[in-house]
């Protein structure tokens, strides 16, 4: 499983970008309500993030599930660390924990 060639590109993506959202569709045109919600939360918080559209690449769509050991999309990574999917991101946002995580990790946000 670790020799899955798509893992290297996922690893690079989460190393090169502070905040990465693997999602269905794009931040501008999300194609799933769950992906849309996480993109909206990040935008609302003024967090710059890279959206990676898994619908554009079926190998990636399957690979990210194995890589994260997480069966669903969206998936949020901050500074290379898996944060969670839609439920977890929403819960953390509502509890103020997402803000704290981003601050602790040194992710700059627009005011």
């Amino acid at each position, binding site marked *: 499983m670790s020799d899955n060639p798509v893992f290297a590109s996922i690893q690079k993506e989460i190393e090169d970008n502070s905040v990465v959202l693997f999602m*269905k569709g794009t931040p501008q045109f999300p*194609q*799933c*309500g*769950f992906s849309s919600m996480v993109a909206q939360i990040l935008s609302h918080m003024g967090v710059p993030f890279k959206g990676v559209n898994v619908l554009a690449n079926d190998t990636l769509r399957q690979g990210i599930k194995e890589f994260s*050991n*997480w*069966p*669903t999309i969206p998936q949020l990574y901050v500074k290379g660390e*898996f*944060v*969670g*999917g*839609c*439920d*977890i991101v929403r*819960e*953390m946002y509502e509890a103020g924990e997402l803000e704290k995580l981003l601050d602790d990790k040194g992710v700059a946000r627009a005011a």
Partner: protein
Amino acid sequence: MTVAETLERALQAAFTPERLEVEDESHKHVGHAGARPEGETHFRVTIVAAAFAGKSRVERSRMVHEALAALLASRIHALSITAKAPGESA
């Protein structure tokens, strides 16, 4: 047995929860990607079980995913999880 019943039984067996609610939300996703004409694709689970004490959100969800691995691979398109330990506010 419906998917909801299968799901509920699997969670009962895995966690012996204090509280378990399984809600079929498929009707909210009719026509969306992953929806099937016969329904039973999108579920919301609220579960309170001692096994979640001291576990992170990600760990709790992974425990639920593991208990439902076969269903997630075959039948369920989306699963919303609220997993709490007894005494935590749900």
